[in-house]
């Protein structure tokens, strides 16, 4: 029976049922659905995660920046030109006239010097990228200084490849912040870090208007930007669930979905309302074999494992659009990256290698891996692959940081891990995958080679020497040779390289995922 009360209740609910606010997003606002709970700071002197890096990349400028079309070529951004002294120690940058901070103040050499000095003095996680040139809080004021309003001199402690310094300065930590604004918010000796964690003071095209951790990020145009954005606002919403991202994209509540999984991407590809942009990221997925394990310490076993993996099946079936096969320690896109694939599934060869190692019946081993996808599925595939040559793998699934904690303590046997390059120079990965000069537990430089208890003096020395090679062609050739030697000797089965894919609505124009991580810019984006 329909009572008067029920009728009133139904009538009251009508406004909600006919709710009309979920129309498409405004034309001058780009709304992205993204997982942003990795961000711990927006201060370029501290941010070292994907989200913080991408936001900083849009809010700040750097002295130099890799060409978006061809990252192997460096272009001046704040620097108009640069010269290297005869002794190779001092690089002098001539600052470009024109770039302005959001406050309207011009970017000076003093700001650029302060920003680098600040990063060294703060000594947060990314500081090592510039500290490796011998800067300390005690010497940095002398070694990085503005010699004129438009001239910045950077003096390193020993001669290095010039491109090495430039690529390191192109990292997020090399972003120029406005000295006067930042220092006006300094508390104690934090150089304004407490304030800059949640805001911006840069000369990029965008200003960070608001960051609510694990909720949203809002960017608005820098009114004094060298290149004005075409949109009035970029809103990044934390949408942790990829299914929810896809639903919101379909409904027009977001314009771009950044974290769809393989199946969803496949569906989106065939939907005429969507288009995709993708680029290889500098993340490599690999199996680390701890040399503390007597079986894994045998060179033939390491090779057998590399020949036992069915790279094609894993890529085709588990990560068809989100990873591609990659077997060199330099990700594709980096100078000197190798794209050939020497390893493929060869069970007979793998078995023969095991027999040669004195283990014809295989052995038992554990494999630590993160419980998230696609890592969990890949771990299962590895278990089956290695099982086929007699290696019985017990899977140990854990939360990502738990697995990292374990491998940092060298308590793993096999571990399925990923590694993202810290900066865009081959030395970033060459160092971590090769250099291990002290294999004791007290070592200071705990590279990936150290974490796998692997010492190869030849490769370690060559990696250390090649960073000082000033002839770029020779340097590249040596990295290529090192990668081939690494493939045949190292305890790393390098498998896949991550591909970042953004799925967007058809009316979003010029949103391009940049090659390499966190380099995507929103300046040219517009909607029709």
């Amino acid at each position, binding site marked *: 029976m329909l009572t008067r009360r029920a009728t009133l209740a139904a009538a009251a609910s009508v406004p909600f049922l006919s709710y009309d606010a979920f129309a498409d997003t405004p034309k001058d606002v780009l709304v992205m659905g993204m997982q942003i709970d990795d961000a711990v700071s927006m201060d370029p002197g501290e941010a070292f995660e994907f989200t913080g890096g991408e936001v900083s990349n849009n809010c700040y400028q750097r002295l130099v920046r890799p060409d978006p079309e061809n990252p192997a070529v460096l272009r001046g951004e704040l620097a108009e030109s640069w010269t290297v002294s005869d002794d190779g120690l001092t690089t002098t940058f001539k600052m470009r006239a024109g770039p302005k901070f959001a406050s309207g103040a011009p970017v000076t050499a003093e700001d650029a010097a302060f920003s680098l000095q600040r990063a060294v003095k703060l000594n947060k996680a990314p500081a090592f990228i510039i500290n490796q040139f011998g800067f300390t809080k005690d010497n940095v004021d002398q070694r990085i200084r503005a010699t004129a309003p438009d001239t910045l001199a950077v003096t390193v402690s020993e001669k290095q490849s010039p491109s090495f310094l430039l690529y390191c300065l192109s990292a997020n930590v090399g972003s120029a912040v406005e000295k006067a604004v930042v220092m006006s918010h300094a508390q104690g000796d934090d150089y304004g870090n407490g304030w800059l964690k949640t805001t911006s003071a840069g000369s990029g095209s965008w200003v960070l208007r608001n960051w609510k951790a694990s909720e949203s990020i*809002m960017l608005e145009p820098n009114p004094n930007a060298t290149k004005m954005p075409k949109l009035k606002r970029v809103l990044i919403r934390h949408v942790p669930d990829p299914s929810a991202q896809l639903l919101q994209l379909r409904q027009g*509540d977001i314009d771009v979905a950044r974290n769809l999984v393989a199946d969803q991407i496949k569906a989106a590809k065939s939907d005429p309302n969507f288009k995709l942009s993708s680029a290889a990221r500098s993340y490599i997925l690999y199996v680390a074999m701890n040399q503390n394990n007597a079986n894994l310490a045998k060179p033939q076993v390491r090779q057998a494992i590399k020949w036992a993996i069915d790279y094609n099946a894993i890529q085709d079936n588990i990560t068809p659009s989100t990873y591609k096969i990659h077997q060199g320690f330099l990700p594709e896109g980096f100078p000197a990256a190798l794209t050939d694939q020497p390893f493929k599934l060869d069970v007979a060869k793998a078995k023969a290698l095991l027999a040669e190692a004195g283990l014809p019946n295989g052995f038992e081993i554990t494999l630590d891996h993160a419980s998230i996808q696609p890592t969990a599925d890949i771990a299962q595939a590895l278990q089956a692959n290695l099982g086929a040559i007699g290696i019985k793998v017990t899977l140990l699934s854990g939360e990502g940081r738990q697995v990292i904690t374990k491998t940092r303590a060298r308590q793993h046997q096999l571990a399925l891990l990923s590694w993202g390059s810290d900066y865009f120079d081959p030395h970033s990965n060459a160092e971590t995958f090769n250099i291990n000069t002290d294999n004791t537990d007290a070592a200071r430089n705990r590279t990936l080679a150290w974490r796998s208890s692997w010492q190869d003096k030849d490769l370690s020395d060559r990696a250390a020497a090649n960073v000082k090679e000033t002839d770029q062609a020779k340097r590249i050739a040596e990295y290529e040779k090192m990668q081939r030697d690494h493939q045949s000797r190292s305890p790393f089965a390098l498998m896949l390289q991550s591909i970042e894919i953004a799925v967007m609505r058809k009316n979003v124009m010029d949103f391009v995922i940049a090659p390499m991580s966190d380099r995507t810019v929103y300046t040219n984006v517009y909607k029709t």
Partner: protein
Amino acid sequence: MKGRWRSLAATLASVPITLFGLVLVTFLIGRVMPIDPVLAIVGDRAPMDVVERTRLELGLDKPLPVQFAIYVNNLLHGDLGRSVMTSNTVWADIARFFPATLELATLAILMAMLIGVPLGVLAAVRQGTRTDQAIRVICLAGHSVPIFVLALVSLLLFYATLGWAPGPGRQSVAYEDMVTPVTGLLSIDSLIAGDYGAFRDAVAHMLQPAGVLAYFSMAYIARMTRAFMLDALHGEYVTTARAKGLSPLRVIWRHAFGNISVRLVTVIALTYAGLLEGAVVTETVFSWPGLGQYLTVSLLNADMNAVLGATLVVGLTYLVFNLLADALYRLMDPRVR
């Protein structure tokens, strides 16, 4: 009367002891967790000097009892520390995340109560009939279908297919950052701001996640109500009331329901407290920035100050609701007075 005061004093005395136990256990779990808390702050690539300096700054080099004593001392001074994931003080984070959960949980419990109690009573009164069977099936589904399935199906149906409800999140893009936070409850704040559009938008965004949570809670409340009512309807006092010729409605609602309402209060209060913990899965699917999501993300990143702070809030909520249920029990049941 004296016994009543003594009982009240004993109950209140148990509060700090329970909270202390909660902090101790959470602290210990946090410290024995196989995740290095320094990782959350400096990341995987930081050099050793940064790792060691951070470890010192966090006081992780000190023995566990000393670390705990420092934490408790800070806690007693109202300092919950700073979250490394959000860079805010844990208080500030709780002030932001808890109202989102409170808003959702309150709407959910109201919906669950208003639907679940009458359904439970109806099922009991019509025991064994098709109505009873139907209600039991509805409740069984609410209890046995995983909540993420309910949430996704709800989104697919009401948001993606029918277009009746807005999508995930607390508000639409058009209202993003338009309402100044006062209470943290978006619906209330939008009313304070006099922005009816924002209010409508906030409530519309709440209905779906609250509905999913309400369905889950309603299933439990209805089942408990049915069980209590069946018990009551078989009581001699109900037979007496019927024999006296009272109307069926009066017998059901006044005599039987009146008698079970005491027990129902406890059930509802504890269900509400459970909702206030934050529903991780629902919050994730609906991108709802609530306490559950905050707690989970913090835990997975070994952000121990945040975990301890949020756990303390959850514990306090439980305690308060337990005490409230206890007080109501005493108030409503003459035998306890």
